């Protein structure tokens, strides 16, 4: 069992228990975490699952694909060069078994 923490702008947090293989987007959609949409179902094609990863977890993240890199250029909320990722590309694994993210204010323009 792994833990994903979603921090919202209003100070509210959602703590979600996730199983291996689940992504940060998927866990949010299944559990109704506000502010994460996942419109393309996890294909890195919509950027409505944008999150800012908290500093302490940055080293644990998988490498970024070219697709993800390109999508992050067109997010509705501004990209953070260091912390921005697509939630659908962050899968819970043995190396990433805990993560905390900030949910951006906007996912759709």
């Amino acid at each position: 069992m792994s833990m994903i923490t979603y921090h919202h702008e209003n100070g509210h947090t959602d703590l979600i228990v996730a199983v291996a293989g689940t992504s940060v987007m998927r866990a949010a959609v299944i559990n109704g975490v506000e502010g994460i949409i996942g419109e393309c179902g996890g294909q890195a094609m919509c950027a409505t699952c944008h999150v800012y990863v908290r500093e302490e977890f940055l080293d644990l993240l998988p490498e970024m694909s070219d697709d993800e890199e390109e999508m992050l250029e067109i997010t509705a909320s501004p990209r953070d060069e260091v912390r921005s990722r697509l939630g659908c590309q962050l899968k819970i694994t043995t190396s990433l078994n805990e993560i905390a993210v900030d949910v951006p204010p906007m996912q759709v323009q």
Partner: protein
Amino acid sequence: MTENIVIIGGGQSGVQLCDSLRTEGYVGAITLYASETHLPYQRPPLSKDFIAEGADAVALPLRAERFFADRAVDFYPGISVTSIDLGIKTVTLSDETSTNYSSLVFATGARNRTLTIEGSNLAGIHYLRTLDDATLLRGELAQATRTVVVGAGFIGLEFAAAARQRGLDVTVLEFGPRPMGRVLSEPMSRYFTEAHTRNGISMKLGEGIAAFGGDGGRITSAIGTSGTEYPANIVLVGVGVIPNDELASAAGIDSENGIIVNATLQTSDPDVFALGDCARYPHAQTGVMTRLESVQNATDQAKTLAKTLTGYPANYDSLAWFWSQQGPIKLQIAGITDGHDKSVLRGNLQANKFSIYCFRDTALVGVESVNSPADHMTARRVLTSGFPISPEQIADSGFDLKSHLKAFELADRG
């Protein structure tokens, strides 16, 4: 009478409508009937991730389970609407009870067109629309080694590419001269034929399906209209869909290849509306009666209809966009390219990263992008803002589309 908006169909558009009605401030009752018993789920992954090796066992839901209680939606999974009385504004249900509505919404989607040819009842022949279809298909894929896909549409080719990634021998039979011929420009179709062929998929164009051969009740081959026999231990048929409009026409609502609606998505009965895959509406940009099958269409129509149903009548005029994932290829389409008379390529075809810009009478009408999500997002902005762009500018690789667009948008706003 108390307000009760009754929605028929718990798919992409029906669920979005529940959500958008509450967002728009509607406080009356919402009743949602859904034939399927599952928590409403997203269909697009069913022909992509869901059938990949080692895929997540559960479908991706459209909303969390508690959504319906949170938004005060009376949700009835497994209950179908069986008939409608427009005169007394009542729906009758599969459990033989009935309910009154103040407004009624058809969000009934579409179902697969099926084949009735020799051997079409053999085990191992699949269709793909629902989670149950996909679960069955996925179960059999584990043992399969050779597949024949009938129809080179989006779902057929997504399945073909996923099956190829799992190591199956894949043959695609397409009656028409090119894949996805109804929607894609000619050069884009050609690109897909070549890319799938390079990927090891055998693309048989101009080859229809004549019959299936079997042994002991199970599929062993597909026989093409040319007479060629293609061995297969699993078959996927993707030959298009039929809109679920029979319930509406039986009630006396105008339907013809879909439930006919006006620009506000209202049917021939003023208290009845239709949206998503089942609705045919006058397209704002082309003026043509149109029925689209896409997540964007279902979602944006629901958002628009929620305004009308809360007292702010709105015409549906969103830009159409679409995506498809076929193995390593991401395709995205913005706008409607139907009837274009010129297409211009921008980007690098050899590197599998490019877009095709489609013009009609020198006006840009749609853009098809391969592995270029930024192009796609820019195209959506170009088409929405009405930024005038010429084929010559697009053909000029030095022309900076993004910054010209930005300047135009700023001038437009200021």
